[in-house]
């Protein structure tokens, strides 16, 4: 770039700011042999400590509002129209950014724009939660998706967002629980009913808890369901037998993602203007004139926020979080990168005859 007088004013590096961990978040990383994967506005961040205890944060470009989960031994990532599996290729050679686990994209499934709001791990790859069609589905070799569960009242594959499914989880006893923004009876006017219209229900449509505003991405902690409400900032613990709920804590800003590991919840939350749904006002205001998106680490045994990871600057909504356990120093590779093109993992010889 040149100024009017012809002097060069220099190049500006517009890389996103490196997220900043609080001491509590650093302690969490130090004490756990894992990498936290955070999907933030088109960037899939790998967050971890290296073997020497140094904080590592590396972004990889994907697409806005992606989802990420660990399922059947692979990392799965959605883009606007794709579902990618990334496999662990082991340490990077030559060693690069302290990478112990180079996660290479292997297969990209073209699923189309299903508006995936959550990924549910299973032994055979993840189920996609499609808000657009109110279904849980797998990827399919022939079609855009293969639905395995359809919300009650849904009769055809129509992009009505009758329920606006916002997440799902399968219990250890294989019971399905889903969160939805509405109860599915409002048709195309569902958007007018999200305030207090959200619910948690099981696979037969039996409502466990209603009156919620923007509940999303349910997870299990022990026997209880953990759900975060985008509309109120509340993190809830719900007894799946009785439907009784306990408020664990109230988060600032608008929660947009949830992951549970050990006795911790990792919650992504940010400013209301970047809300998952524009009617979500969230909890108390985030601190600062220009509140930053962040991940809060919450001890589920007492509701204490024990750490934060703050994304300063040009950050966006945190749509999904997962952890890669026993994998410190994972590094994600974008399908469109030269690294992806020029790195090969050769499997064992498997003779044809």
């Amino acid at each position, binding site marked *: 770039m040149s100024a009017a007088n012809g002097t060069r004013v220099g190049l500006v590096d517009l890389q996103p700011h490196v997220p900043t961990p609080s001491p509590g978040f650093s302690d969490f990383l130090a004490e756990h042999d894992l990498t936290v994967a955070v999907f933030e506005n088109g960037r899939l961040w790998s967050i971890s400590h290296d073997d020497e205890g140094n904080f590592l944060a590396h972004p990889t470009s994907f697409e806005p509002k992606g989802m990420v989960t660990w399922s059947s*031994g692979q990392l799965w990532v959605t883009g606007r129209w794709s579902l990618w599996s990334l496999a662990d290729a082991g340490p990077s050679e030559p060693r690069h950014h302290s990478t112990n686990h180079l996660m290479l994209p292997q297969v990209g499934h*073209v699923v189309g724009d299903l508006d995936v709001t959550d990924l549910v791990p299973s032994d055979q790859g993840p189920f996609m939660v499609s808000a657009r069609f109110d279904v849980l589905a797998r990827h399919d*070799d022939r079609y855009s*998706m293969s639905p395995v569960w359809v919300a009650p009242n849904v009769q055809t594959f129509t992009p009505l967002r009758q329920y606006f499914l916002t997440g799902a989880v399968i219990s250890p006893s*294989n*019971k399905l629980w889903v969160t939805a923004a509405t109860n599915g009876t409002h048709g195309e006017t569902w958007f007018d009913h999200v305030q207090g219209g959200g619910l948690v229900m099981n696979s037969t449509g039996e409502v466990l808890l209603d009156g919620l505003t923007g509940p999303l991405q349910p997870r299990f902690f022990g026997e209880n369901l953990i759900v975060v409400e985008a509309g109120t900032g509340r993190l809830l613990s719900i007894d799946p037998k009785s439907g009784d709920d306990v408020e664990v804590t109230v988060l600032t800003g608008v929660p947009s993602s949830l992951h549970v590991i050990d006795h911790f919840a990792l919650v992504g939350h940010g400013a209301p203007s970047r809300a998952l749904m524009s009617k979500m006002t969230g909890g108390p205001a985030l601190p600062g004139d220009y509140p930053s998106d962040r991940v809060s680490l919450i001890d589920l045994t007492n509701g204490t926020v024990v750490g934060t990871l703050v994304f300063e600057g040009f950050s966006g909504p945190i749509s999904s979080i997962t952890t890669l356990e026993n994998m410190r120093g994972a590094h994600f590779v974008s399908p469109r990168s030269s690294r992806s093109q020029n790195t*090969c*993992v050769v499997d064992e*010889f498997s003779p*044809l005859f």
Partner: protein
Amino acid sequence: MMSTDSGATFLEESATTPGEEPSVNDNLELLASEGFADWLNQENVSLAFGTPPSKFWMVGVDDEGELSIFDRVLDKVMGLATDGHDRLSVATRYEIWHFENMLKAGTTTDSGHDRLFVPRSQSIVGNVNIHDLGIDKDGKDIWVNTRFGCLASSSDHASFIPRWIPPFLDGALQGDRCHLNGLAMVDGEPRYVTCVGQTNEVDSWRDGRRDQGIVIDIRTNQILGRGMSMPHSPRFYRDKIWVANAGTGELGYIDTEQERFEPIFFGPGFLRGLCFVGDYAVVGSSKPRRGDLYSGLPLDEKLEESGMDAHLGLFVVNITTGELAHWLLVEGNVRELFDVCALNGAKRPAIIGLLGSEIATELWFDDSLPIPQERREAVPFQ
């Protein structure tokens, strides 16, 4: 929403028929011989091929019998394969793309296309030079990995699985040692391959480009044909192993008793890419360029003797007479063509590209709702 009788539902979001993709002004022009469109019409076939670096073509005929050209941007199209019905696989620079036709026979899109190939998945295999590609009887891909000197299959947990290695190579190692480049499928199984030489040192095959080419039966590792110049694209058709002997510009077959190549046709170009339609072979032709891999071959002398220029395109050859029946030439700043694929029964195919919004908005579902019981039983939750 438009329902077809194809057992699938197309969600019509943007009133799209293929054509939304950003255009690339590459100044390429296709020139066809008189009668080429009639031939496609008579044979009830259309052709698919790529011209790197970026173009993928589908050539058929419209309702008036005029040539219908459909093109999309794909990065360095190399090997192609079809299962003969609804699947089309395309090897590109570092990926293998699988496309599925969503239209049932007898149905068309609003713009009259009778095949609509939709991208369904891509396997990233790395930049390994996938010269040739097959789909086996189980629907699994098997392809020539020239860079590692092996036949390979894609995998969901690695870049590729080595499946067969020429007996004279030390293993599936990085580095092109024999220029393994072609694969013939027989009854849904990989069977014959072509190599430029039997050498085991990286790039040493280049020394044998004029006359060290071979055809191998991979079941027995027996060499069935020798003495060829950069043979490519072996195909098994009507009980013969056909080969494009690129370095001489000849199409022919292997006399397995004499272990030699029997030419039936000379075409002005580096012949590579081959498929068959009835009594005809469709063979691809690339342009050699002075000083590159394709020059210094017998083809140079043949072109000089005949006073012909090399062409990029397709030659349609009557295999009962060895005569050129038709041609389709690609004019412009491109010079390579790796493979050509016949889409039998398709008059006017189309393909959803990767750059436009249609890859996101073209949603196709199995029509079966409510979800069949067997699929419900297969899921692990209640």
